[in-house]
């Protein structure tokens, strides 16, 4: 390593420090924007340092520069366009796409590096091959897996688990091919073998995500994010670049933590999620089976009276709220209540959206101040003091059945909605949630069901409250 490349490595360390500080500043919404700026600065420094290194070495051909610059510019334009235009409800798809391209790029770096080394005299170094292999496998699996996840989230591919006969056997066969080929590559330099590794990994990525249901998407996205980070770190080992190693490790840690948080929030093991099959919802029982005699249905006016004369209201939003585009309406209702001295807060379950923290972003977009967005542990003790819990579009995460053994959601941490003095549930029908079981909250004597589309219901509630309290 000559002194020039050493200096460039030092610049990379500076960039890596910026990434760490940037992530650190994200521990509070107040400083998070600065964190993103610090992280961006680190990235600009790293890319500039790379360009300077390339110019200094002077080994790049005219065609090479053209290819790289055009590729970078077109990619930047595509990224910029999608980032500017994406709807907040579609954020999980976009993050998934970024996972795909990140993992894909990391795999390409390793593949290309291998092609170079393989043609060089002496072939490929032993230890490098380990990282090349890992990078190619993880990167390729992430690439196709994330594309499938994005397709499922976007509705291009069915959100239902896709399970076909022999899928498990095919998965095992692919895993054997991947491990076998990787082992072969350790002893023999062979480009065709690397291609087989790439293709098998790509196929494995598809088959890995297809059987996973829509409700498990927060876990899948987190896991693929961790994969992408790991692939980038492996690419860093292949080309001996500290910036890639540090950045990849940070992302791997972030994805890993979020995967665990999401899996815990559903009380399911990662293995159980990966096997798939959950989240079908097709074994839902018909309404009549739920002992419908105990269900109390109310209209907007009655619900509005409860809200208007409450002193503390907790709103429990679920993904159904976002699907109905009702988040702005809810924010308006909350403002009306607050302007009459009613305390309003939001109880957000970790898996309330389609990715970790998704519901918070949707409500922030609807102009809800972040101090009102309460995490599960924080809000659960407050339900007992709440006069009304208003549940909109949330189902399984409010089901008291989770506290008992022997149900599909047993042990899942839930919001203690049933502790509130009265409960209003806005719902289109008695259909069950992803877990496919009836919600015992609905037959609670304190619960009133308000059957309507979330957006329409919220608008009616708002106007009814307005007329009541003037």
């Amino acid at each position, binding site marked *: 390593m000559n002194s020039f490349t050493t200096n460039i490595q030092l610049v990379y360390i500076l960039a*890596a420090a910026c990434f760490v500080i940037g992530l*650190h500043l*994200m*521990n*509070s*919404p107040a400083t998070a924007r600065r964190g993103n*700026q610090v992280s961006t600065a680190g990235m600009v420094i790293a890319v500039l340092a790379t360009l300077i290194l390339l110019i200094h*070495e002077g080994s*790049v051909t005219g*065609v*090479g520069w053209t*290819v*790289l610059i055009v*590729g*970078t510019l077109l990619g*930047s334009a595509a*990224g*910029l366009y*999608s*980032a500017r235009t994406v709807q907040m409800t579609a*954020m999980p798809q*976009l*993050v998934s796409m*970024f996972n795909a*391209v*990140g993992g*894909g*790029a990391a795999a390409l*770096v390793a593949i*290309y590096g291998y*092609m170079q080394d393989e043609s060089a005299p002496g072939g490929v170094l032993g*230890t490098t091959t380990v990282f090349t292999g890992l990078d190619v496998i993880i990167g390729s699996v992430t690439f196709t897996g994330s594309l499938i996840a994005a397709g499922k989230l976007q509705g291009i591919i069915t959100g239902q688990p896709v399970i076909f006969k022999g899928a498990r056997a095919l998965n095992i066969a692919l895993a054997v091919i991947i491990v076998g080929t990787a082992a072969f590559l350790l002893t023999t330099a062979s480009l065709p073998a690397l291609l087989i590794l790439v293709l098998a990994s790509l196929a494995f990525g598809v088959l890995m995500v297809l059987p996973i249901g829509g409700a498990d998407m927060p876990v899948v996205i987190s896991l693929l*994010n961790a994969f992408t980070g790991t692939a*980038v*770190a492996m690419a*860093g080992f292949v080309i*001996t670049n*500290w*910036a*890639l190693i*540090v950045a990849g*490790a*940070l*992302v*791997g*840690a972030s*994805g890993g*933590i979020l995967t665990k*948080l999401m899996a815990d929030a559903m009380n399911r093991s990662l293995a159980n999620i990966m096997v798939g099959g959950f989240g079908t919802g097709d074994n839902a029982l018909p309404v009549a089976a739920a002992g419908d005699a105990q269900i109390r249905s109310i209209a907007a006016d009655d619900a509005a009276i409860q809200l208007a004369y409450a002193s503390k209201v907790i709103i429990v939003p679920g993904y159904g709220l976002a699907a109905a585009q009702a988040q702005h309406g809810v*924010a308006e209702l909350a403002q009306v209540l607050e302007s009459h001295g009613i305390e309003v807060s939001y109880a*957000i379950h970790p898996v309330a959206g389609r990715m*970790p*923290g*998704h519901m*918070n972003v949707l409500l*922030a977009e609807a*102009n809800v*101040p*972040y101090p009102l967005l309460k*995490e599960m542990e924080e809000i659960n003790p407050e339900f007992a003091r709440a006069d009304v819990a208003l549940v909109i579009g949330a189902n399984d995460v409010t089901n008291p059945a989770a506290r008992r053994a022997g149900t599909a959601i047993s042990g899942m941490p839930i919001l203690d909605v049933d502790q509130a003095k009265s409960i209003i549930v806005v719902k289109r029908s008695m259909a069950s949630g992803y877990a496919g079981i009836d919600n015992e909250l609905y037959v609670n004597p304190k619960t009133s069901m308000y059957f309507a589309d979330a957006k329409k219901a919220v608008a009616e509630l708002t106007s009814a409250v307005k007329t009541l309290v003037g």
Partner: protein
Amino acid sequence: MSTALVTDLTIFVLALLVGIEVIGKVPATLHTPLMSAANSIHGIVLAGALLIGVTAHTFVGYVLAFVAAFFAAANVVGGYVVTGRMLKMFRRKAVPPPADAVGANGQGTPAPAPRKDGATS
């Protein structure tokens, strides 16, 4: 095992531990922007794509370099922009509707300006 590899592994393990420590403190409210920020950070693979792409001298090499640069650039630019966009929406207090804003700021920023102009002229 070479010293360079040991150094690389050391950096990897330490960075992983730092990541766990730092990210564990991020509140659930910010988990989506966190993931998006992490996304943009792994866009550093752009540096890798550039470093490796410059050695291209065959058609296949150019194609791979182009795709890698495209992917990585989309990742890094899109990631940072969308993270910034999301974080901008997180406010401590609700922004009042425009009509209220004018009323509330009656004695605020817009009003003094003309008065000052009037005083000086």
